[in-house]
Structure formats: structure tokens, C-alpha cells
């Protein structure tokens, strides 16, 4: 990035909420692990796309945002929604298609939304989060709200026209948009490095006059520091800005994808970079937490998710007439 103030010189250990970042990642890990199993067991209908292995991006970016900041995300959005504060019970009930789900059981895994948390929705169309976030940022700017709008998207979306049109529009209107590309190397089943001559998303955004920075997407503190600085710069009128978080999708494009297209050694190497393990080691080394304390945080998040599952199982599906509600507003 081009400008830096002294307080933004990379991760400042004292200012980084390191335990909160760990706790948020542990929640996402517990949620996604359970959801993958529940889907396999046939308890969750539809399509499910988990973000296992990418927890640091969701936790790092969303922890750097304020509660009013907007977020538009993708089909792989559970982690972003949880990290932005969407209720765990409401989300789990939604995945179970229950009437008390956060969207009344009418959205599902790919459409979790909670405007009260600034979450404008997960979205099942690749690239759709970008123009929506640009519009939210336009609202924020025209109404003088000082809110930042974050668009999460994968590197696969960067080959969509929606990416290029949206980045350009945000640039010419100087909008407070933070573009967060989760580069997990695979666009559905295909190696993204074979789908463009310019695999660097930072380079592609630079072509639109938008500053970007690549960060280790498995290092939650690096993501947090980059996002905090970028969000502050957006609030100061320096947006749009881009972060390319380099990470890896542990599971398939969707649950059930056998991933025949991934080399085993590649998957193993990335598993060694488990974002929770990386951060846990650091917390222990710095004396900020003991391994036992971190185990307790993980156990407590698993319990929280287990409770949401038990609750969701006990809830009723929507009444048939609910199918006809909310098509139009009065």
C-alpha cells in the first residue's frame, strides 16, 4: 500500500486482539467441521460449501470491522457471517431449513444474511458480492455514514466481468470498498493459475488503479493488520482497496466433491499451515496463552456449535403458507 501512518506499521502485537482472533477461528472451525458431517449424514439439505482452512481470512478481516460496516459474501460465506457476529443458533437453524432460521428457512447455506450485523448476504452467484458491496459503499458515502463495505470473493470471481466492472466503478467514485479476495487456488475444480496469464489479483486490481496488498491468508494477525489498515484508509476516503489473502480450501468446492484434481502433497503442505495451529503456536510462544487455555477455547466453541445443532434438530420447518410470504413488500 502506498501510504502508512506510524500506527499502521504492520502487526502491532499490543493492539491485536489475538485471543479473540483465535476464538473466532475456533468457532468457524467447529461450525464448518460439524456442518460437513451433518451434510454427509443427510441432516442438512441442499448444497454446502465449507471454508475449512480459510478461517484466518474471515476472522482477520471481520474482527477489523465495526458492527455497522457492510459485508457481502459468497457461496462459501459461513465463516464471514459468523465472524461478523451473525447468531450461531440462527445460522445453524437456517442450514437445517427451520422456521426459526436467520432467514426463516428460505435462504439456506448459500444465502445467510443479517442486515442488523451489516451482513448483506452470502450469495450463490460467483462475483455478485462485488457490485452489491459497491452499492452499499455508495450508500455509506452519499449518506455520510463512514461505513466501509467489504466484498469477499474468490480468485475465480476475478475472471468475471462483475469483478472488473465493479472495481472500476468503485475506483472512479472513490468508494469506501474493501475488496477481499480469498485466493484458495481452486476455482471450483480448476487450478486458477491455469485460468489467467496474471494469477496475481493485486496486479489485476492495479490495472484499475486500485491499490492492493497480498497477505498470508493463513496468518490471522497479518490479515487482521492489513484489513484494519485498509478499513481505516477507506474511512479516510482512500478507497477502494484490495487485499489478496493467499489461502487454501481444505475441502472440495462443495461437500461431497472428491477433489481428484488436487495433488496430495499440495493439500498436505497446506494442512501443515493450518491457520489455527499457526496462531496457537504464536500465542504460546509469546506467552499470551497456554496450550490448555487454547484447548479450552476450542472445546467451548465446539460446545456452542453442538448446542446450536441440538436446538436446530428440535425446531420445526416453516409452515406451508410461508412459501408465499415475502415475495413482495407492502
Amino acid at each position, binding site marked *: 500500500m502506498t501510504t502508512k501512518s506510524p500506527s499502521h506499521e504492520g502487526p502491532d502485537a499490543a493492539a491485536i486482539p489475538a485471543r479473540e482472533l483465535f476464538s473466532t477461528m475456533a468457532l468457524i472451525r467447529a461450525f464448518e467441521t460439524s456442518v460437513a458431517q451433518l451434510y454427509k449424514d443427510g441432516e442438512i439439505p441442499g448444497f454446502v460449501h465449507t471454508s475449512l482452512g480459510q478461517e484466518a481470512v474471515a476472522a482477520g478481516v471481520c474482527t477489523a470491522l465495526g458492527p455497522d460496516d457492510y459485508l457481502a459474501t459468497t457461496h462459501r460465506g459461513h465463516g464471514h457471517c459468523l465472524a461478523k457476529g451473525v447468531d450461531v443458533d440462527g445460522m445453524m437453524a437456517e442450514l437445517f431449513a427451520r422456521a426459526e432460521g436467520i432467514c426463516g428457512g428460505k435462504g439456506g447455506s448459500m444465502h445467510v444474511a443479517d442486515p442488523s450485523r451489516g451482513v448483506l448476504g452470502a450469495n450463490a452467484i460467483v462475483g455478485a458480492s462485488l457490485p452489491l458491496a459497491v452499492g452499499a459503499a455508495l450508500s455509506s458515502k452519499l449518506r455520510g455514514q463512514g461505513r466501509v463495505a467489504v466484498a469477499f470473493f474468490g480468485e475465480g470471481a476475478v475472471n468475471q466481468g462483475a469483478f472488473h*466492472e465493479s472495481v472500476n466503478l468503485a475506483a472512479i467514485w472513490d468508494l469506501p470498498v474493501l475488496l477481499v479476495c480469498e485466493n484458495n487456488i481452486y476455482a471450483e475444480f480448476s487450478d486458477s493459475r491455469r485460468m489467467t496469464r496474471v494469477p496475481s489479483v493485486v496486479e489485476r486490481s492495479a490495472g484499475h488503479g486500485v491499490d492492493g496488498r497480498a497477505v498470508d491468508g493463513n496468518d490471522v494477525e497479518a490479515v487482521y493488520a492489513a484489513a484494519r489498515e485498509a478499513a481505516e484508509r477507506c474511512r479516510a476516503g482512500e478507497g477502494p482497496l484490495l487485499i489478496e489473502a493467499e489461502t487454501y480450501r481444505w475441502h472440495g468446492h462443495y461437500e461431497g466433491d472428491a477433489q481428484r484434481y488436487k495433488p496430495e502433497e499440495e493439500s498436505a503442505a497446506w494442512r501443515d499451515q493450518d491457520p489455527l495451529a499457526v496462531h496457537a503456536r504464536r500465542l504460546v510462544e509469546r506467552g499470551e496463552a497456554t496450550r490448555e487455555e487454547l484447548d479450552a477455547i476450542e472445546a467451548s466453541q465446539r460446545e456452542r456449535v453442538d448446542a446450536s445443532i441440538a436446538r436446530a434438530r428440535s425446531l420445526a420447518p416453516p409452515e406451508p403458507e410461508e412459501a408465499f410470504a*415475502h415475495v413482495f413488500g407492502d
Partner: protein
Amino acid sequence: MSSATDAPPAATRYIDALVGGMADALEEDDSVILIGIDVGAGGGIFTATKGLHERFGDERVLDTPISEMAFAGAAVGAAMTGLRPIVEIMFMDFVSVCMDPILNQAAKLRYMTAGALEIPVVFRTQTGAGKSAGAQHSQSLEAWFAHVPGLKVVMPATVTDAHDLLLASVRDPNPVVFIENRRLYGMRGELGVDALPLGRARVARSGEDVTVVTWGQSLRECLAAAEEGPASLEVVDLRSLVPLDMETVLESVRRTGRLLVVHEAVQDFGAGAEIAAHVAAELFDELRTPVRRLGTPAVPMPFSPELERSLLPGSKAIASAAHSLQMEG
């Protein structure tokens, strides 16, 4: 620039009624913004936004790059966060490059979030064959949008409706596809005549023999056909396809026993089939003749003025179809 709140001229052009409708919307609610290609200082390629940039400024009237996907999508994002955008899609054919924001986002986000998100956005566009604009600048695609639950589809055919329905569309809490016809832009008429809310059809002319249901620019052709005779035509202007006011249509067909549906859009799989199916289902025993449709034949619109004229349903073809219905029974 005209406006309903200013003293209107004796006869207002349809296009000026549109400008007035937008001006009134921008004036009454500061969350209304106007977004599109050349809508700013240029005033729009058909002058539909003339004077609005000058009056409301850069922050309310925004020129965009030629990036329909981005600006239509941004309008949806803005609508869900407190603004009420009016988006201009310059030609209706261009919706093909921004269907996702309209079809998958605007139409569905209220539903998918059980009402947590509201999307008050108007996609203004215009169509209109008959000017040798060729196959990519002449299509009437209203049936596409009427087929998607969650979108209102409004097609003003009069000067009053150009103003009133546009203002009503902006005030509506739902996404509206607002379809103008550029052959009507120069038409003169009165503002404030026989005002009706969005969602109600208007009996544009009373008659006894055949009910003619239509919308958009075809209304003029149907009214001209009614003058030509010999059948006495009751002409119903639907004004919007969604909501669809079948009550007014059924009430008329009950009296005449005959229905002709006329539209400029391609006849096959057009909205006329929906009207015909409703009437056949509801009034089968009261119909004196089978329902008939008259639309453009299923060919891309040719450039040649002669070929184009031969395809569009004009007043003579309408009068003839109505007369043959009358003769059948």
C-alpha cells in the same frame, strides 16, 4: 423540464412527463438517486433525464461507465442499504448484460431473507420497434421479467402514466422494471388525467363487441383500430403486467364474450398467452369465440423499414382481427 408540482403545460410530451416524474421523486425524497450511462449533464440520449443533473447535482444524478452489470448491481446494493435508486438501462436489449442483479439479486433478496432486506429500486428502460434500430435495439422483453417472481413490471402508455407510474414505482418498496416505449416519447397528452394506482388496469375506451387487452405503445394502435371499426372495441390498458389486474379484464370479457390480446413483443410465449390462459380458465363458458392473440411474429426484428412494418401489429391488423372475432360468433 415539467413537473406535476409545477404548473404543467397544456399538452405535455410523454418524455417530459418522465422527466417530471423523476424530478418529483428526487425532490420529495433525498434517498432517491439516478444512475446510468449519460444520465448526468448529457441529459440522457433521449433527453429523459434532461436538467436533472443541473438541478440535483453530482451526488444525486450519477453518470456511469458502460458497465451495466456493475451499476445495476450497485443500485441493488444501494437499495438494500437505504437509497432508492432509479437505474437507467439505455435500451431494453442491454438487460442481457446485467440480468444477474435484476433476476438473481433484486427479485429474490427480500424473499431469501424472509423480508429482512428491502430492495426499492427502479430499472428504467425503453424499447420500441419501428425505427429501423435492428434486432439488438428493438426487443420488447417484458415477459422475461413478468416470469420472475419478485419483480413488478410496469409499462406506461399515456402521458399521465409516464409521470404517475414512474413516481409510484420509485415509492414502491419492491424492485420495478419500468419499460418505456421510445415511439411514445414525442406523444403529447395531459398530466393528471384519470389517475389510477400502480396495479390497476384502465379501460381506455368502452365498447361492446370485443375486449382488446394491451399495454405500452400498442395502446395507440388499439385505440386507432377502435376508430376504424366496424367492431365496437373495449380497449383495456393493463399499465402493469405485475401486478396483473385480471379483475378488470375478466369484467370486460364477461360483457363482450370475446378477447383479443395485442402486444408489440413477439407473440410466441409472450405475456398475451398468460392473459389468454387466465380468461380461458375463468370464463370458458362465457366466451363466444376462442381467445386470439396478436403480437410480432417470432423472428428477430429486421432492419428494413418495410419488413419491420410488415411484422408489427398495427391498427389495421388489429381492427381486422377484432372484426373476424366478431364474425366468428
